[in-house]
């Protein structure tokens, strides 16, 4: 049966050819900066970006609100607009009457995600922090803890589990299948998909950019064919176009992470009937 396969499927893959090497997951492993120093060896580029983003956001909001005026200046206007956008269109629409105490977390989360994602296309940094899965896991676990704790506080433990796994108005025999699925999707899989969505988008977007830029570099500088040298312009153009597209994706993913957090909190707080 195997012999009926086409020959190109049967040949073993060639050892790495001297030609073009496509970017892979390996390109995301940035070597550590302080090799061998006891604690500092865990500090690499993404960690520094995390710290830098916190400093940026803290600085921006401190400057914007330090001397708050009735007629806002440009910086204050931007900060207020950002806050009002998260408060009204993310928190209030998805959480319901008790949205007020979650607004600080959601504003901070959205700002943190926007800045860290945009690091992926800002020149000189050009590495989205969340293209390392560990970073995304941490944020997703934080959201998971918040919506579970909030739900258990509001509904009580039994009431919360019932709300999550026991949707009303379902015939008894369906519950045998439905309750495990609901438990799996509402309690166990939510943080996983939350983290993977953010990580996957950042990883894939950065990989596409790497592919076009490396490809253009290879075609222009290393390939010895005039046709390829000329065609490298197309690859560079695609890299530029995809940088713009990436900016859009990064903002959308920050928005989606925040809005899903809000809607999970809202679902935990919902009244049963």
């Amino acid at each position, binding site marked *: 049966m195997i012999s009926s396969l086409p020959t*190109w499927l049967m040949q073993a893959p*060639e050892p790495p050819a001297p030609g073009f090497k496509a970017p892979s*997951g390996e390109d995301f492993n940035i070597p550590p900066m302080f090799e061998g120093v006891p604690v500092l060896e865990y500090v690499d580029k993404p960690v520094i970006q995390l710290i830098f983003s916190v400093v940026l956001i803290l600085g921006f909001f401190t400057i914007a609100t330090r001397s708050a005026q009735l007629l806002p200046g440009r910086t204050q206007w931007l900060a207020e607009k950002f806050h009002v956008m998260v408060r009204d269109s993310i928190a209030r629409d*998805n959480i319901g009457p008790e949205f007020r105490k979650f607004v600080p977390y959601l504003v901070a989360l959205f700002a943190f995600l926007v800045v860290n994602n945009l690091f992926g296309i800002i020149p000189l940094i050009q590495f989205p922090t969340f293209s390392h899965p560990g970073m995304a896991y941490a944020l997703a676990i934080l959201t998971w803890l918040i919506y579970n704790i909030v739900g258990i506080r509001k509904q009580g433990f039994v009431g919360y589990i019932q709300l999550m796994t026991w949707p009303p108005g379902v015939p008894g025999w369906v519950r045998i299948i439905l309750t495990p699925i609901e438990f799996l999707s509402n309690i166990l899989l939510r943080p996983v998909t939350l983290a993977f*969505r953010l990580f996957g988008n950042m990883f894939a977007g950065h990989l596409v950019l790497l592919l076009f830029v490396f490809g253009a570099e290879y075609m222009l500088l290393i390939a010895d064919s005039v046709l390829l040298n000329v065609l490298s312009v197309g690859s560079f153009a695609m890299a530029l176009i995809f940088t713009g597209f990436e900016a859009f994706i990064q903002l959308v993913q920050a928005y989606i992470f925040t809005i899903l957090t809000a809607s999970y909190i809202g679902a935990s707080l919902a009244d049963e009937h």
Partner: protein
Amino acid sequence: MLSGNLNVVGYGLSAIGPGIGVGIVFAAFINGVARQPEARGQLQSIAFIGFALSEALAILGLVLAFALQ
């Protein structure tokens, strides 16, 4: 001579369903806004939640394509 990884074909397969799903989500969103333009704000957040949920499968496929070697 063609060499590569079958995982990528798996990712391609896993992207079909979410592709259709995302299309349906945004088609419904456009329909809703066309019928009732003032509901745009509310519909937009619902549309993005639906988009995120249906896109999850494609993202899982992408992650698995790289994770399983």
